């Protein structure tokens, strides 16, 4: 019988919703936050409460991932909702939005119902489905958005494809706007990027692969910002990767448009040189090494130049980019054990996201508070009012909590992933900062904790 209440003593509490960053206690009871802040007297601890020492740990609201691929239904060899949800729990994410490029695609209420049922069966993290913009993700006719909204989708996206037809995109923004939901935009003009697995520039030239130009993203960002202005809808730009896109979003926000934007951990922390397979000392000019063309670095949009990475980080710091989303894209082993051109796109990112992002904090490039904000309140701005209880440690809110050991070093071993997707470019890399526990609704769904008696704290589910 899992404990009904939990006391985390003496952790550093970081909560962007209140601006709190202090050492204190956290009491969770009956699925809610009871207290967060002041030291809690023994007399106030409910009977049967499980206590853990929070010394050296950061406690913050459970992270929210606005963009993940759980592959179910249809591609259960790559991931299932159960394995994806466990990967999320391990990665510190209490809430995950899953993309509709399943088979069949999530373009109608039946598939939404199925996904939600599988998520309830997994009973780990909150799974919020995203429905298709168009039927079959084919880009021709709008999907039944109202019915999907009734079934519980939190937004619409043809992710993996953009909506090529500008008129249809305009209608989608207007119609979804009427439902109060965002259109999540995969910005790619395929006529410029078709068959191009790497960023256009030095690296594409160097390895002889077709280049995916920054312009293929930017023309769609510019187009859809213009459309959002006339459509009166809410536009969310997924996985932006270029300095030019950041600039376009900056201008749109200055004009007061309802535009939000996200960036992935990999586009913030890795750049195109990873395709060359250089070791840490290797200059850009060095020879390709036998481990060049590592298909784990193949992702859409591609890893970009260092200048782009810098601009994304700056945009994130300034709030031009609202949030970080993983674009967790697990793939089966065989889909990556081929040539670079033949390999499937995607990085399995849920379990490495926080460790990689904390690199930026350790280097002084991002404050912990900003990082927490971009992983909690940022996504909530896109999700809107129904979810405003999440992402905070305020008493009374759902007890979705993540505990971090900022200095805990660990080596990425994909064989130990909960995700079926072992496709990570970070294989063997030492990361500093790990997720020690994730609570959802007051119960641990991932735990490396020991209680005050020194016994391991089992996850509840």
């Amino acid at each position, binding site marked *: 019988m899992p404990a009904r209440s939990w006391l985390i003593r003496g952790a550093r509490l970081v909560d962007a919703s209140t601006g709190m960053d202090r050492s204190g206690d956290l009491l969770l009871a009956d699925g809610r936050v009871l207290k967060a802040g002041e030291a809690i007297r023994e007399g106030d601890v409910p009977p049967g409460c499980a206590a853990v020492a929070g010394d050296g740990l950061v406690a913050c609201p459970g992270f929210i991932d606005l963009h993940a691929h759980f592959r179910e239904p249809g591609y259960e060899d790559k991931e299932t909702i159960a394995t994806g949800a466990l990967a999320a729990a391990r990665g510190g994410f209490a809430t995950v939005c899953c993309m509709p490029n399943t088979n069949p695609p999530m373009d109608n209420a039946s598939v939404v119902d199925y996904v939600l049922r599988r998520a309830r069966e997994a009973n780990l993290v909150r799974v919020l489905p995203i429905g298709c913009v168009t039927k079959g993700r084919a880009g021709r006719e709008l999907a039944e958005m109202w019915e999907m909204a009734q079934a519980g989708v939190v937004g619409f996206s043809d992710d993996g494809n953009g909506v090529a037809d500008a008129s249809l995109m305009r209608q989608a923004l207007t119609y979804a706007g009427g439902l109060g939901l965002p259109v999540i935009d995969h910005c790619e003009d395929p006529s410029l990027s078709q068959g191009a697995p790497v960023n256009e*520039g030095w690296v594409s030239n160097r390895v*002889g692969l077709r280049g995916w130009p920054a312009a293929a993203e930017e023309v769609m960002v510019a187009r859809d910002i213009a459309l959002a202005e006339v459509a009166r809808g809410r536009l969310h730009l997924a996985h932006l990767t270029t300095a030019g896109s950041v600039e376009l979003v900056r201008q749109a926000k200055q004009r007061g448009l309802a535009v939000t934007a996200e960036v992935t951990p990999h586009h913030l*922390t890795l750049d195109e040189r*990873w395709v060359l397979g250089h070791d840490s000392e290797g200059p850009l000019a060095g020879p390709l090494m036998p*481990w060049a063309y590592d298909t784990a670095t193949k992702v859409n949009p591609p890893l970009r130049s*260092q200048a782009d*990475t810098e601009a994304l980080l700056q945009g994130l710091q300034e709030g031009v980019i609202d949030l970080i989303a993983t674009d967790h894209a697990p793939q089966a082993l065989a889909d990556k054990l*081929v*040539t*670079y051109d033949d390999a499937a796109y995607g990085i399995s990112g849920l379990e490495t996201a926080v460790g990689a992002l904390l690199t930026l904090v350790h280097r002084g490039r991002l404050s912990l508070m900003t990082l927490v904000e971009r992983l909690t309140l940022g996504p909530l701005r896109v999700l809107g009012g129904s979810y405003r209880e999440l992402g905070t440690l305020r008493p009374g809110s759902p007890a979705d909590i993540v505990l971090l050991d900022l200095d805990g070093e660990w080596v990425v071993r994909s064989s130990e992933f909960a995700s079926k997707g072992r496709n990570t470019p970070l294989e063997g890399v030492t990361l500093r900062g790990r997720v020690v526990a994730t609570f959802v609704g007051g119960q641990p769904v991932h735990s490396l904790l020991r209680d005050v008696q020194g016994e391991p704290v089992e996850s509840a589910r």
Partner: protein
Amino acid sequence: MALTVQPVVQPAVSAPVGSLVDGSRRHILDLDDFAVEEMELVFTTTDAMQEVLGRDIKKVPTLRGKVVVTLFYEPSTRTRVSFEGAGKLLSADVINVSASGSSVEKGESLLNTVRTLQATGADVLVVRHHHSGAPYFIARHLERTRVINGGDGWHAHPTQGLLDLYTIQRHLGRVAGVKVVLVGDIVHSRVARSNLWGLLAMGAKVTLCAPPTLLPYEFLQGHYRQPGHPWASVEVEGSVERALEGADVVMPLRLQRERQQSGLLPTLREYSKMYGVDERRLARANPGALVLHPGPMNEGIEISPQVAHGAQSLIEEQVKNGVAVRMALLYLLLRPAAEGGKR
């Protein structure tokens, strides 16, 4: 683009490429990792192989008991036949596998195919593949068999590069300071890329001449002029007349018809008028300038028949040198430990 700052997170892997000089090199994937002394060793070894080719009985027992497998996913005449010939002249057993007629047609993956070839005892695998990087992928997944890149996508064709360098060295006595002009489809050319690495390492002066749609992005954007850029010394010249002024070596590249279909060129006719190397244009080069072509040629498009078969053309000699260079490479890669090779 900053060239010096490292990525935030560092890759975890590292391994040396080795050298043919001390026998520690395992694979020949491109010329970007070849030291000058390694290329010079290839040239002197090639000279010795030329001597063998000049004999009445050309066969020597050097690689008896070794197995050379050629695996070609793309059509090829020169590269495949010259590797086969080179292996046979050195008494290796040569097995030719092509994508058609093998289990590749039944859908066998590249990985399973090459692991099968390793299991059948291949000592060296010569691979031609239409995807850039395929030889790197293969090399990572073979423990015993060595890999020679016989041309991968747009990326590299190191043995062609070496035979071009050897041919220049043989005729001009040096590569350093020689002006080499590559004309045509640079962006899609694995020959151009491998030649660039080799020529620049040996100190040649390289000029690229192409319509801007067929130039790599780096050159189009001028990024290559940044200090420290490995291609900073390359000249780019849009006019073929100006490019050929003072050239010692002229290398027109094959222009594939698809380039017109994909909108990179209006017509082959216009290309030929603007960039085709003919006698009139060749006259602007230094007297006796060498004409090389990696083949197969589109006579009348990138090169006129008069130039292709003229007195300055070394195109047939390139093919002959190709056999000797590949003999040298097979020998240097497979030679026993007593002769300097490490196992």
